[in-house]
């Protein structure tokens, strides 16, 4: 028996979601069901649709791939193996603000299972925000020195391997001597660059004062480091300041 015209019309006029709902609700069978399934497959192959039991999570993670900062990184390093981990770290940095500890732990376990400590380093690099000035640095470096993706990738690998050694976090209750000692320790290792971070107004004031003191004494100039300031605000409005110090001797 041929399929009634109105059913054929329906199958070919509905979008995918409605077609699936209609096929189930109308309990199509036989040739009508076969036509509906073929149409479902054809629409699916347009690559526009997806299903996941974690819709909110999937949208959140896919949105990170559309941010300017992520696109800039991709432009610098191409399809680097760490991109999905950086994306996860950025996603974690958003989750942290909502306190979704269980999800964060699960992500870390999954990453550790496949990429071990190196993978966790990459996730931490992104989840702590260190990746933001790092991307700025890589992007500037690419432009200034006309480097190709391979060169920039090496820089990114250095950052992921050494990020703890090249990052100083200043808290509101950090002591002056500790901040200065940590900055000096960074410079003693002579990295191409290092970062100082502060979260929130009080931490920023403390970091600013100590960096200004060192700068006024000509310490950075003497050690060959050029200073850049970078500011952003997180989702809940907390100021995040960082200072990037780039070794200019090597130029």
């Amino acid at each position: 028996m041929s399929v009634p015209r109105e059913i054929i019309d329906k199958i070919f006029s509905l979008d995918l979601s409605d077609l699936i709902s209609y096929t189930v609700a109308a309990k199509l069978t036989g040739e009508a069901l076969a036509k509906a399934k073929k149409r479902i497959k054809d629409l699916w192959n347009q690559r526009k649709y997806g299903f996941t039991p974690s819709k909110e999570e999937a949208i959140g993670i896919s949105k990170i791939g559309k941010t300017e900062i992520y696109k800039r990184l991709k432009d610098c390093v191409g399809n680097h193996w760490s991109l999905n981990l950086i994306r996860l770290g950025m996603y974690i940095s958003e989750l942290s603000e909502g306190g979704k500890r269980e999800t964060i732990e699960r992500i870390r376990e999954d990453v550790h299972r496949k990429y071990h400590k190196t993978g966790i380093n990459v996730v931490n690099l992104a989840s702590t925000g260190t990746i933001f000035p790092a991307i700025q640095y890589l992007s500037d470096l690419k432009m200034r020195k006309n480097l190709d993706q391979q060169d920039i990738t090496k820089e990114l690998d250095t950052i992921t391997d050494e990020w703890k050694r090249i990052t100083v976090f200043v808290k509101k209750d950090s002591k002056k001597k500790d901040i200065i000692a940590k900055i000096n320790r960074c410079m003693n290792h002579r990295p191409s660059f290092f970062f100082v971070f502060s979260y929130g107004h009080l931490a920023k004031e403390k970091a600013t004062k100590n960096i200004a003191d060192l700068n006024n004494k000509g310490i950075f100039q003497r050690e060959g480091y050029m200073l850049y300031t970078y500011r952003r605000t997180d989702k809940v409005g907390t100021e995040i300041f960082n200072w990037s110090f780039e070794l200019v001797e090597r130029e």
Partner: protein
Amino acid sequence: MPDIIFMDLNKDERELLLDSLGFDIDGNGIIIEKCTNKPYMCPITGKEVHFDNASILPGSTVVINTSAYTLSEYFSKYLERRE
């Protein structure tokens, strides 16, 4: 990365979608490839995929075990590399 429309589907609708794309579900809820009659393996975790935890994603019919990690890997490896 292209925008994906994530659909809301109930259990029967998901079964129909999987059926249309060439998959069955066995008595334990494991997704089976019709062409081989064997359990389908998640290309990211390398493990069997349970119906309740299956994300069905665009591409050459990619079904994955769902987690933040697998979703991120899917976006990076299956979508962005084709741009």
